[in-house]
């Protein structure tokens, strides 16, 4: 009688252990599925953000709105994210003696940066080289660099 009771308890314990292991494996598979779906979603989001987020720097040009200044515009666009743009406009002079101005702007979705320098060209002189460099970044840690160059009599 005592032995049969022990057997019954043992069987019940085995059944409980099996149940819990099944539950554990089920939970594990669920978490794996969620991880996979999460990573897939993340990959899709990344792909979407890669295709949607872009940065552009236009050519430096003599401003028509503000005479005697050279101006450049740069844009970063990334829908639904915080974006930052850092644009530098440099006037190339002899070797290290360049002049430059940097503007940094942060906004949501789309951001524009305008940088301008006062003209220094003198009549009879050769064209001056202007270089505009922008560093675009978003809140997901993605980034890009764009650069343009123009020679202007300004």
């Amino acid at each position, binding site marked *: 009688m005592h032995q049969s009771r022990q057997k019954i308890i043992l069987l019940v314990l085995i059944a409980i252990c099996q149940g819990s292991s099944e539950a554990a494996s089920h939970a594990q598979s669920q978490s794996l599925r969620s991880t996979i779906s999460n990573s897939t979603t993340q990959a899709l989001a990344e792909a979407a953000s890669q295709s949607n*987020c872009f940065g552009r720097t236009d050519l430096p040009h003599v401003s028509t709105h503000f005479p005697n200044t050279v101006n450049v515009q740069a844009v970063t666009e990334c829908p639904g994210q915080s974006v930052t743009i850092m644009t530098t406009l440099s006037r190339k002079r002899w070797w290290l003696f360049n002049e430059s101005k940097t503007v940094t702007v942060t906004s949501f979705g789309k951001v524009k940066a305008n940088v301008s320098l006062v003209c220094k060209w003198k009549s009879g002189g050769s064209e001056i080289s202007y270089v505009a460099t922008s560093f675009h970044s978003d809140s997901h840690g993605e980034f890009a660099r764009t650069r343009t160059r123009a020679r202007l009599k300004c």
Partner: protein
Amino acid sequence: MTRNRDGRDPTLFQKTYEFDLGPFWLNLLAMIPVIDKLAYPLAVRRGIATIICPEPTEDLEKLTSKGWIIRNEEPTQRELFRTGSFATLSSSQDSDLLRRRNAVLAGGFRRTLFESLRIFGWTEWSRTLIARRYTHKFNGTYASYIQMRKEARAGLKLRNDH
């Protein structure tokens, strides 16, 4: 407002020269100091020089007869990408090396170093090429840039043959 000798308003004209789309010897000529000035009129004759002119002017026909390509619309996204003025944001692994280098060479030292290295770009065109290569390597799009340059070259050849 400053004007050229022929009376044209220089602010209306944005000239671009794409020596890398032309023959190899012309590309090389544009990289040699002093004599690189000879490459510019040759580029115009070869049809690889473009004027972006937002407003039509009377001189356009004269310029076209000389070989200039006149455009009044903005460049396409592909063209902007090739020249390095348009890029898609990414966290590419190709640019990891450059990012690490930039992290090490931070601030003024980095700027001074790169400005010193600039002396190796002896002409305007070679400096442009160095900048484009650096930009595409940084963005991890160097392979696409090379491919697009090949396509642009083939397109130009087709246009010239036609």
